[in-house]
C-alpha cells in the first residue's frame, strides 16, 4: 500500500507547460506571487485570474486538481478572512450585538482571500506540472548565482534529490518495522495522544538507525563512483532554454507590465 505513494502532486500528462524548462516555471511562479502584492484594485486581480486560467488551460491538468491544493489552506484562509473582517477598525458597516464589521475590514478580507487563493492555485500549477526531480534541477541551475554568497546550491539540490529517492524506501521500511513490532505486541492505535506518541518510540529508533546506516552506505557508494561535489561535474540532462521557454518568459513579462500598470490605477469605484 505504501509502495504506490506518489511524491509531490505531479500530474502526468502532455502539455506545453509540462515541457517548459523548470527555471521558467520557478521564475514565473515567483513573479506571479510578487505581482499579487502590487495590485491596488480589482482589475489587477482580474488580470491575474485570467492569466492563471489561461495557463491552467494550457497545462491540461483538470481544474479540480488545482482546487485540491486550496483545501489544505482552507483553514488558514478562513482564519485570515474572519480576523480581517471583525478586527479591522474603521467605518462601521454592520453591527451585530458586540461584533462590528467595518467597510475597511470587508475590503481587506476580500482582498486577502482573493490574493491567497490566487497564490495557492498559482503555485499548484508549478508543482502539478513539474516532477520533483526536474524542480531540483531547475533550482540548482536557477539559483547558481547565489554561489557568490557561498550558498551550497549544488549540495542542497543533491540532498533534495537523494531525499526524494529514499522516501519510498524508508516508507516501506517503516511499514516493515511497524508490522514486526505489532507482531510482538506493540499497540500503535489505542490510547490518548501521549500514549500514541510514546508507542512510536520503538518504531522511530530502528528507523533512525537504519536511515543512518543507509546514509553511510550511500556515501561510500557515491565516493566509489567518483562523486566529489559539483565541481567539474557534467550533466546527463542539461537544462537548455528552448524557443518555447523564451516565449514563456515574454508572456510573463507582458502579464507583469499590463497587470501592474492597470492594477495600480486609482479607481474611484473601489476607493
Amino acid at each position, binding site marked *: 500500500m505504501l*509502495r504506490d505513494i506518489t511524491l509531490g502532486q505531479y500530474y502526468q500528462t502532455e502539455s506545453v507547460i509540462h515541457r517548459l524548462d523548470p527555471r521558467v516555471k520557478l521564475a514565473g511562479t515567483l513573479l506571479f506571487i510578487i505581482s499579487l502584492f502590487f495590485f491596488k484594485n480589482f482589475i489587477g486581480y482580474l488580470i491575474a485570474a485570467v492569466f492563471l486560467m489561461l495557463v491552467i488551460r494550457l497545462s491540461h491538468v483538470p481544474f479540480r486538481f488545482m482546487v485540491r491544493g486550496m483545501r489544505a489552506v482552507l483553514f488558514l484562509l478562513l482564519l485570515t478572512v474572519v480576523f480581517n473582517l471583525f478586527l479591522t477598525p474603521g467605518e462601521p458597516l454592520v453591527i451585530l450585538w458586540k461584533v462590528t464589521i467595518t467597510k475597511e475590514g470587508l475590503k481587506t478580507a476580500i482582498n486577502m482571500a482573493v490574493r491567497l487563493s490566487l497564490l495557492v492555485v498559482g503555485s499548484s500549477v508549478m508543482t502539478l506540472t513539474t516532477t520533483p*526531480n526536474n524542480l531540483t534541477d531547475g533550482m540548482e541551475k536557477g539559483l547558481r548565482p547565489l554561489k557568490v554568497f557561498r550558498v551550497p546550491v549544488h549540495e542542497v539540490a543533491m540532498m533534495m*534529490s*537523494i531525499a*526524494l*529517492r529514499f522516501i*519510498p*524506501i524508508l516508507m516501506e521500511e517503516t511499514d516493515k518495522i511497524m508490522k514486526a513490532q505489532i507482531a510482538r505486541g506493540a499497540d500503535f492505535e489505542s490510547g490518548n495522544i501521549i500514549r500514541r506518541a510514546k508507542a512510536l518510540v520503538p518504531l522511530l529508533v530502528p528507523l533512525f538507525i537504519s536511515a543512518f546506516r*543507509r546514509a553511510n*552506505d*550511500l556515501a*561510500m*557508494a*557515491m*565516493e*566509489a*563512483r*567518483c*562523486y*566529489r561535489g559539483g565541481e*567539474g*561535474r*557534467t*550533466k*546527463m*540532462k*542539461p537544462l537548455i532554454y528552448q524557443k518555447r521557454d523564451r516565449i514563456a518568459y515574454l508572456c510573463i513579462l507582458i502579464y507583469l507590465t499590463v497587470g501592474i500598470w492597470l492594477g495600480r490605477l486609482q479607481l474611484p469605484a473601489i476607493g
Partner: protein
Amino acid sequence: MGIIKAKDVTFEYIRRDEDGNVEGLTTAVDHVSLDIKQGEFIAVLGHNGSGKSTLAKHINAILYPTEGTVWVDGMDTSEEDKLWHIRQTAGMVFQNPDNQIIGQVVEEDVGFGPENIGIPTKEIWERVEESLKIVGMYEFRKHSPNKLSGGQKQRVSIAGVLAMHPKCIVLDEPTAMLDPRGRKEVIRAVRALNDVEGMTVILITHYMEEIIHADRVFVMDKGRIAMEGTPREIFSRVEELKELRLDVPQVTLLAYELQKRGVGLPDGILTAKELAEALLRTENV
C-alpha cells in the same frame, strides 16, 4: 605487473567499547599479497569476518592499508592525487542494492558516475545505453529503481560502474541480499562481463557455487589468504574447506565421500554432469 597488485597489505583498526575506550586492535587484513592479471576472473571466498570485504575496499581506495601497498594499474592507492583515477579504474559494486542507487530513474543512475568524472553530455548517453545493454537492463531505462527486483537493481549498479569504463570491477558480495533467481541473474551478468567484454572481475562471495567459473580462487580466513588455486584445486581440498567453515557444494561433497569409500573418481568434481560422467566411466572399467 598485473592490474591489481597487493604486497604485504595489513589493515588494523581500533576496537572501542560503548564509552569510546580502546578495547584492543583488530587486524582485519593480515599481510596479504596478491597479483591479478588483466582479464582474469578472481573469486575471493570466506565466511563472515574473514576480512574479504575489507580487502575489497582497499582496491577501490576506500580504505588504505596500515602497512604494505596496493597498486591499481600501477598507481599506488595511498597517493591522494590519483584517488579519482584509481576509483575510475577499479569500479565497485556493493552488497545492498538499495543503498547504492542514487538516481530516481534507471538511466539517470547509470549516468551518475560519468557525470562525476566530467564526461560530455552526448557521450554520457552513449555510455549509459551501452552499459545497460551489457547487463540486459536497457528496456528498463525509464523505470524507477524502486520498482525493480533485487537482481535487476544489482544489474543496474553494475551498469553504473561499467559506464565509467573501468578496467576492473570489484563486486563485494553482490548476491548476499538476493533470492536464488536474482543471484543467478547477477552471476550470469558478471560472467558475461568477463567472457565477452574481457573485464577483470573480482568477485567477493561466501557462496561456493558462484566461484566455479572463476580462473583463480582465494580463500580468506582471519585476514589471511588460507588457500589459493583454481576452483578445481580448491574443491579437492574438502577437509580444509570444512575446517574454514565453508560449505562445499553437494556434488563435490558426494564425489569426495564416494572417493573416500574407494570409488575411483578424479579430484574436485564441480557439477552434477561431471560426476555422472565420471561415475559412468568408473563402471565401465
